Protein backbone atom coordinates (compact mmCIF):
# COMPACT_ATOMS: atom_id res chain seq x y z
CA UNK A 1 0.00 0.00 0.00
CA UNK A 2 1.64 3.22 -1.12
CA UNK A 3 0.63 6.44 -2.77
CA UNK A 4 1.60 7.84 -6.17
CA UNK A 5 1.22 11.51 -7.08
CA UNK A 6 -0.86 11.94 -10.24
CA UNK A 7 0.24 15.17 -11.98
CA UNK A 8 -3.21 15.56 -13.54
CA UNK A 9 -5.34 14.86 -10.46
CA UNK A 10 -2.79 16.90 -8.48
CA UNK A 11 -2.92 14.63 -5.46
CA UNK A 12 -1.56 11.39 -4.05
CA UNK A 13 -3.65 8.37 -5.01
CA UNK A 14 -3.64 4.75 -4.02
CA UNK A 15 -1.24 2.58 -6.02
CA UNK A 16 -3.98 0.16 -7.13
CA UNK A 17 -5.53 2.95 -9.25
CA UNK A 18 -2.42 2.91 -11.49
CA UNK A 19 -0.83 0.62 -14.07
CA UNK A 20 2.75 0.70 -15.36
CA UNK A 21 3.13 0.75 -19.15
CA UNK A 22 6.87 0.28 -19.67
CA UNK A 23 9.75 2.56 -20.53
CA UNK A 24 9.03 6.24 -21.20
CA UNK A 25 10.39 8.61 -23.86
CA UNK A 26 10.58 6.08 -26.69
CA UNK A 27 10.53 8.13 -29.89
CA UNK A 28 8.97 6.55 -32.96
CA UNK A 29 11.36 6.81 -35.92
CA UNK A 30 10.31 9.88 -37.92
CA UNK A 31 10.61 8.09 -41.26
CA UNK A 32 9.77 4.37 -40.81
CA UNK A 33 10.34 3.64 -44.53
CA UNK A 34 13.93 4.82 -44.28
CA UNK A 35 14.61 3.06 -40.96
CA UNK A 36 16.78 -0.07 -41.01
CA UNK A 37 15.32 -3.34 -39.73
CA UNK A 38 17.76 -3.23 -36.81
CA UNK A 39 16.70 0.27 -35.77
CA UNK A 40 13.00 -0.60 -36.17
CA UNK A 41 13.49 -3.77 -34.13
CA UNK A 42 15.20 -1.75 -31.41
CA UNK A 43 12.30 0.70 -31.40
CA UNK A 44 9.66 -2.02 -31.18
CA UNK A 45 11.19 -4.62 -28.90
CA UNK A 46 14.30 -3.52 -27.02
CA UNK A 47 14.06 -1.71 -23.70
CA UNK A 48 16.58 -0.44 -21.16
CA UNK A 49 16.96 -2.29 -17.90
CA UNK A 50 19.12 0.06 -15.86
CA UNK A 51 20.28 -0.37 -12.30
CA UNK A 52 19.24 2.95 -10.79
CA UNK A 53 17.28 5.82 -12.30
CA UNK A 54 14.65 4.72 -14.81
CA UNK A 55 11.92 6.72 -16.58
CA UNK A 56 8.62 4.89 -16.97
CA UNK A 57 5.22 5.45 -18.51
CA UNK A 58 2.27 4.92 -16.16
CA UNK A 59 -1.46 5.39 -16.50
CA UNK A 60 -3.92 6.52 -13.84
CA UNK A 61 -6.21 3.74 -15.02
CA UNK A 62 -9.03 4.04 -12.49
CA UNK A 63 -8.80 7.81 -11.91
CA UNK A 64 -8.39 10.40 -14.64
CA UNK A 65 -7.15 7.76 -17.15
CA UNK A 66 -4.26 9.97 -18.26
CA UNK A 67 -0.78 8.69 -19.07
CA UNK A 68 2.14 10.33 -17.29
CA UNK A 69 5.79 9.61 -16.45
CA UNK A 70 7.49 8.38 -13.32
CA UNK A 71 11.22 8.52 -12.57
CA UNK A 72 11.97 5.54 -10.37
CA UNK A 73 15.08 4.07 -8.77
CA UNK A 74 15.15 0.38 -9.70
CA UNK A 75 17.44 -0.40 -6.73
CA UNK A 76 15.12 0.93 -4.02
CA UNK A 77 11.79 1.21 -5.95
CA UNK A 78 11.66 4.80 -4.70
CA UNK A 79 9.66 7.15 -6.91
CA UNK A 80 11.82 10.22 -7.49
CA UNK A 81 9.32 12.34 -9.42
CA UNK A 82 6.18 12.19 -11.54
CA UNK A 83 5.61 14.50 -14.48
CA UNK A 84 3.14 15.06 -17.30
CA UNK A 85 3.34 13.83 -20.87
CA UNK A 86 5.48 16.13 -23.01
CA UNK A 87 7.61 17.22 -20.07
CA UNK A 88 11.23 16.21 -19.46
CA UNK A 89 12.48 14.56 -16.25
CA UNK A 90 14.38 16.73 -13.80
CA UNK A 91 16.06 13.73 -12.15
CA UNK A 92 18.27 11.73 -14.53
CA UNK A 93 21.00 9.09 -14.21
CA UNK A 94 23.59 11.77 -15.05
CA UNK A 95 21.95 14.36 -12.83
CA UNK A 96 22.13 14.88 -9.09
CA UNK A 97 22.52 11.73 -6.98
CA UNK A 98 19.12 10.11 -6.78
CA UNK A 99 17.44 10.81 -3.48
CA UNK A 100 13.79 10.12 -2.80
CA UNK A 101 11.84 13.36 -2.99
CA UNK A 102 8.49 14.22 -1.47
CA UNK A 103 6.87 12.90 -4.63
CA UNK A 104 6.45 9.44 -3.15
CA UNK A 105 5.19 8.61 0.29
CA UNK A 106 5.32 5.18 1.76
CA UNK A 107 2.41 4.63 4.08
CA UNK A 108 3.25 1.07 4.95
CA UNK A 109 5.86 -1.60 4.59
CA UNK A 110 6.86 -2.19 0.98
CA UNK A 111 6.83 -5.90 0.31
Amino acid at each position, binding site marked *: MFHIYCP*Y*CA*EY*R*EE*EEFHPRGQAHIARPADPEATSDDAWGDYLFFRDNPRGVHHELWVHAV*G*CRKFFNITRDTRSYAILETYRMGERPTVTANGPEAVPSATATLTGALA
Partner: protein
Amino acid sequence: MSKVVQFDPHPAQAAATQSPLHHVAAKPAVGETGVTLTERAFLDHLIVRGEPGVLAGAVEAVLGLELPTQPQRLARNETGSLQWLSPDEWLLIVAGGEGFRLQRELREALGEAHFSIVDVGGGQTLLELSGKHAVEVLMKSTVYDVDPRHFPVGKGVTSVFAKATAVIRRVDESRWELVVRRSFADYCLRWLLDAGEEYGIAHQPTQPAVASHRQTVTDTETVS
Protein backbone atom coordinates in the same frame (compact mmCIF):
# COMPACT_ATOMS: atom_id res chain seq x y z
CA MET B 1 -23.04 23.36 -36.11
CA SER B 2 -20.79 20.35 -36.58
CA LYS B 3 -22.12 17.42 -38.61
CA VAL B 4 -23.09 14.99 -35.89
CA VAL B 5 -26.05 12.67 -36.09
CA GLN B 6 -28.24 13.25 -33.04
CA PHE B 7 -31.19 11.31 -31.80
CA ASP B 8 -33.35 11.55 -28.71
CA PRO B 9 -32.67 8.40 -26.70
CA HIS B 10 -36.01 8.88 -24.92
CA PRO B 11 -38.58 9.78 -27.60
CA ALA B 12 -42.26 10.13 -26.78
CA GLN B 13 -44.11 6.80 -26.51
CA ALA B 14 -40.79 5.22 -25.77
CA ALA B 15 -40.39 1.58 -25.07
CA ALA B 16 -40.61 0.78 -21.39
CA THR B 17 -37.43 1.52 -19.46
CA GLN B 18 -35.88 -0.57 -16.72
CA SER B 19 -33.42 0.63 -14.13
CA PRO B 20 -30.43 -1.69 -13.69
CA LEU B 21 -31.68 -2.23 -10.12
CA HIS B 22 -35.36 -2.75 -10.94
CA HIS B 23 -35.18 -6.33 -9.69
CA VAL B 24 -34.01 -5.57 -6.15
CA ALA B 25 -36.84 -4.83 -3.74
CA ALA B 26 -36.51 -2.01 -1.25
CA LYS B 27 -36.04 -3.02 2.37
CA PRO B 28 -36.22 -1.02 5.60
CA ALA B 29 -33.37 -1.08 8.09
CA VAL B 30 -33.27 -3.69 10.81
CA GLY B 31 -33.47 -1.55 13.93
CA GLU B 32 -32.47 2.11 13.86
CA THR B 33 -31.70 3.58 10.42
CA GLY B 34 -28.11 4.85 10.23
CA VAL B 35 -27.70 4.92 6.44
CA THR B 36 -30.20 5.32 3.63
CA LEU B 37 -29.53 4.02 0.12
CA THR B 38 -31.61 5.21 -2.85
CA GLU B 39 -31.16 4.76 -6.56
CA ARG B 40 -31.75 7.91 -8.61
CA ALA B 41 -32.66 6.16 -11.83
CA PHE B 42 -33.14 7.48 -15.37
CA LEU B 43 -31.13 10.65 -14.98
CA ASP B 44 -29.40 11.74 -18.19
CA HIS B 45 -25.61 11.33 -17.97
CA LEU B 46 -23.47 13.09 -20.58
CA ILE B 47 -19.71 13.00 -21.04
CA VAL B 48 -18.43 16.35 -22.28
CA ARG B 49 -14.88 16.46 -23.64
CA GLY B 50 -12.71 19.27 -24.96
CA GLU B 51 -10.24 21.93 -23.88
CA PRO B 52 -11.56 23.94 -20.91
CA GLY B 53 -10.96 27.19 -22.82
CA VAL B 54 -13.21 25.93 -25.62
CA LEU B 55 -16.02 24.61 -23.41
CA ALA B 56 -16.24 27.11 -20.56
CA GLY B 57 -18.22 29.83 -22.34
CA ALA B 58 -20.84 27.51 -23.85
CA VAL B 59 -21.23 25.54 -20.62
CA GLU B 60 -21.84 28.71 -18.65
CA ALA B 61 -24.31 30.06 -21.21
CA VAL B 62 -26.34 26.85 -21.59
CA LEU B 63 -26.13 25.33 -18.10
CA GLY B 64 -25.50 28.40 -15.99
CA LEU B 65 -22.62 26.50 -14.38
CA GLU B 66 -19.00 27.52 -14.18
CA LEU B 67 -16.90 24.74 -15.76
CA PRO B 68 -14.88 23.21 -12.89
CA THR B 69 -11.27 23.37 -14.09
CA GLN B 70 -9.73 22.38 -10.76
CA PRO B 71 -9.25 18.62 -10.29
CA GLN B 72 -11.94 16.73 -8.33
CA ARG B 73 -14.44 19.60 -8.32
CA LEU B 74 -18.18 19.21 -8.62
CA ALA B 75 -20.42 22.14 -9.61
CA ARG B 76 -24.17 21.99 -9.05
CA ASN B 77 -27.24 24.09 -9.66
CA GLU B 78 -30.94 23.49 -10.35
CA THR B 79 -30.17 22.31 -13.93
CA GLY B 80 -27.88 19.52 -12.77
CA SER B 81 -24.32 18.74 -11.79
CA LEU B 82 -21.03 18.99 -13.66
CA GLN B 83 -18.00 17.10 -12.40
CA TRP B 84 -14.32 17.25 -13.38
CA LEU B 85 -13.21 13.75 -14.43
CA SER B 86 -9.91 14.57 -16.12
CA PRO B 87 -8.27 17.73 -17.53
CA ASP B 88 -10.42 17.51 -20.68
CA GLU B 89 -13.43 15.48 -19.52
CA TRP B 90 -16.53 16.28 -17.47
CA LEU B 91 -19.59 14.33 -16.35
CA LEU B 92 -22.86 16.22 -16.71
CA ILE B 93 -25.89 14.74 -14.94
CA VAL B 94 -29.30 16.32 -15.55
CA ALA B 95 -32.94 15.31 -15.10
CA GLY B 96 -34.15 12.46 -17.29
CA GLY B 97 -35.33 13.79 -20.66
CA GLU B 98 -33.31 17.03 -20.39
CA GLY B 99 -30.08 15.62 -21.80
CA PHE B 100 -31.06 15.72 -25.45
CA ARG B 101 -32.20 19.35 -25.37
CA LEU B 102 -29.10 20.50 -23.44
CA GLN B 103 -26.84 18.51 -25.76
CA ARG B 104 -28.38 20.30 -28.78
CA GLU B 105 -27.99 23.68 -27.12
CA LEU B 106 -24.36 22.95 -26.21
CA ARG B 107 -23.61 21.82 -29.76
CA GLU B 108 -25.17 24.98 -31.16
CA ALA B 109 -23.19 27.17 -28.75
CA LEU B 110 -19.92 25.36 -29.51
CA GLY B 111 -20.35 25.48 -33.29
CA GLU B 112 -17.32 24.19 -35.17
CA ALA B 113 -15.10 23.93 -32.09
CA HIS B 114 -13.25 20.69 -31.33
CA PHE B 115 -15.27 18.88 -28.66
CA SER B 116 -17.34 15.78 -28.00
CA ILE B 117 -20.59 15.12 -26.13
CA VAL B 118 -21.73 11.55 -25.58
CA ASP B 119 -24.89 10.34 -23.81
CA VAL B 120 -23.78 7.58 -21.43
CA GLY B 121 -27.00 7.48 -19.41
CA GLY B 122 -27.83 3.95 -20.51
CA GLY B 123 -24.51 2.67 -19.21
CA GLN B 124 -24.53 3.91 -15.65
CA THR B 125 -26.78 4.78 -12.74
CA LEU B 126 -26.59 6.93 -9.64
CA LEU B 127 -26.87 5.68 -6.07
CA GLU B 128 -27.37 8.06 -3.18
CA LEU B 129 -26.05 7.24 0.24
CA SER B 130 -27.10 9.43 3.15
CA GLY B 131 -27.25 9.40 6.91
CA LYS B 132 -24.84 9.76 9.76
CA HIS B 133 -23.03 6.47 9.04
CA ALA B 134 -22.80 6.91 5.24
CA VAL B 135 -19.14 7.85 5.50
CA GLU B 136 -18.31 4.69 7.47
CA VAL B 137 -19.92 2.54 4.78
CA LEU B 138 -17.79 4.32 2.17
CA MET B 139 -14.65 3.85 4.24
CA LYS B 140 -15.23 0.10 4.13
CA SER B 141 -15.74 0.17 0.39
CA THR B 142 -13.11 2.37 -1.24
CA VAL B 143 -9.34 2.92 -1.00
CA TYR B 144 -9.85 6.66 -1.43
CA ASP B 145 -9.65 8.78 1.73
CA VAL B 146 -13.26 9.84 2.31
CA ASP B 147 -12.61 11.37 5.72
CA PRO B 148 -14.63 14.63 5.75
CA ARG B 149 -11.41 16.60 6.43
CA HIS B 150 -10.01 15.32 3.14
CA PHE B 151 -13.29 15.07 1.23
CA PRO B 152 -15.24 18.34 1.51
CA VAL B 153 -18.69 18.95 0.05
CA GLY B 154 -18.32 19.64 -3.69
CA LYS B 155 -15.55 17.12 -4.26
CA GLY B 156 -15.82 14.10 -6.56
CA VAL B 157 -13.32 11.40 -7.52
CA THR B 158 -13.19 8.26 -9.63
CA SER B 159 -11.68 5.43 -7.63
CA VAL B 160 -11.78 1.79 -6.71
CA PHE B 161 -15.09 0.80 -5.14
CA ALA B 162 -15.33 -2.73 -3.67
CA LYS B 163 -13.84 -4.79 -6.51
CA ALA B 164 -15.27 -2.47 -9.16
CA THR B 165 -14.90 1.27 -9.77
CA ALA B 166 -17.22 4.18 -9.07
CA VAL B 167 -17.41 7.94 -9.23
CA ILE B 168 -17.77 9.07 -5.61
CA ARG B 169 -19.13 12.57 -4.91
CA ARG B 170 -20.07 14.42 -1.77
CA VAL B 171 -23.11 16.61 -2.34
CA ASP B 172 -23.69 17.86 1.19
CA GLU B 173 -22.69 17.22 4.79
CA SER B 174 -24.22 13.75 5.05
CA ARG B 175 -25.18 12.95 1.46
CA TRP B 176 -22.94 11.13 -1.02
CA GLU B 177 -23.53 9.99 -4.60
CA LEU B 178 -22.02 7.00 -6.37
CA VAL B 179 -22.07 6.76 -10.16
CA VAL B 180 -21.68 3.08 -11.02
CA ARG B 181 -21.61 1.11 -14.25
CA ARG B 182 -24.92 -0.48 -15.18
CA SER B 183 -23.35 -3.94 -15.30
CA PHE B 184 -21.85 -3.45 -11.83
CA ALA B 185 -24.92 -1.81 -10.28
CA ASP B 186 -26.33 -5.03 -8.83
CA TYR B 187 -22.93 -5.96 -7.35
CA CYS B 188 -22.38 -2.46 -5.88
CA LEU B 189 -25.89 -2.37 -4.40
CA ARG B 190 -25.52 -5.77 -2.74
CA TRP B 191 -22.06 -4.78 -1.49
CA LEU B 192 -23.51 -1.60 0.06
CA LEU B 193 -26.39 -3.47 1.68
CA ASP B 194 -23.91 -5.90 3.19
CA ALA B 195 -21.42 -3.21 4.24
CA GLY B 196 -24.22 -1.09 5.71
CA GLU B 197 -25.90 -3.84 7.67
CA GLU B 198 -24.03 -3.10 10.90
CA TYR B 199 -25.07 0.60 10.70
CA GLY B 200 -28.74 -0.13 9.97
CA ILE B 201 -29.03 0.45 6.23
CA ALA B 202 -32.42 1.23 4.72
CA HIS B 203 -32.81 0.57 1.01
CA GLN B 204 -35.46 2.94 -0.32
CA PRO B 205 -37.45 2.35 -3.52
CA THR B 206 -35.85 3.66 -6.71
CA GLN B 207 -36.61 7.34 -7.32
CA PRO B 208 -37.20 7.68 -11.04
CA ALA B 209 -36.21 11.14 -12.24
CA VAL B 210 -38.13 10.49 -15.39
CA ALA B 211 -40.12 12.54 -17.86
CA SER B 212 -43.85 11.85 -17.74
CA HIS B 213 -44.08 10.16 -21.17
CA ARG B 214 -41.74 7.35 -20.23
CA GLN B 215 -43.02 4.11 -18.78
CA THR B 216 -40.94 2.30 -16.24
CA VAL B 217 -41.07 -1.38 -15.48
CA THR B 218 -40.07 -3.11 -12.31
CA ASP B 219 -39.77 -6.80 -11.67
CA THR B 220 -38.62 -7.10 -8.13
CA GLU B 221 -37.38 -9.84 -5.91
CA THR B 222 -36.07 -9.58 -2.38
CA VAL B 223 -32.36 -9.73 -1.72
CA SER B 224 -31.66 -12.60 0.55
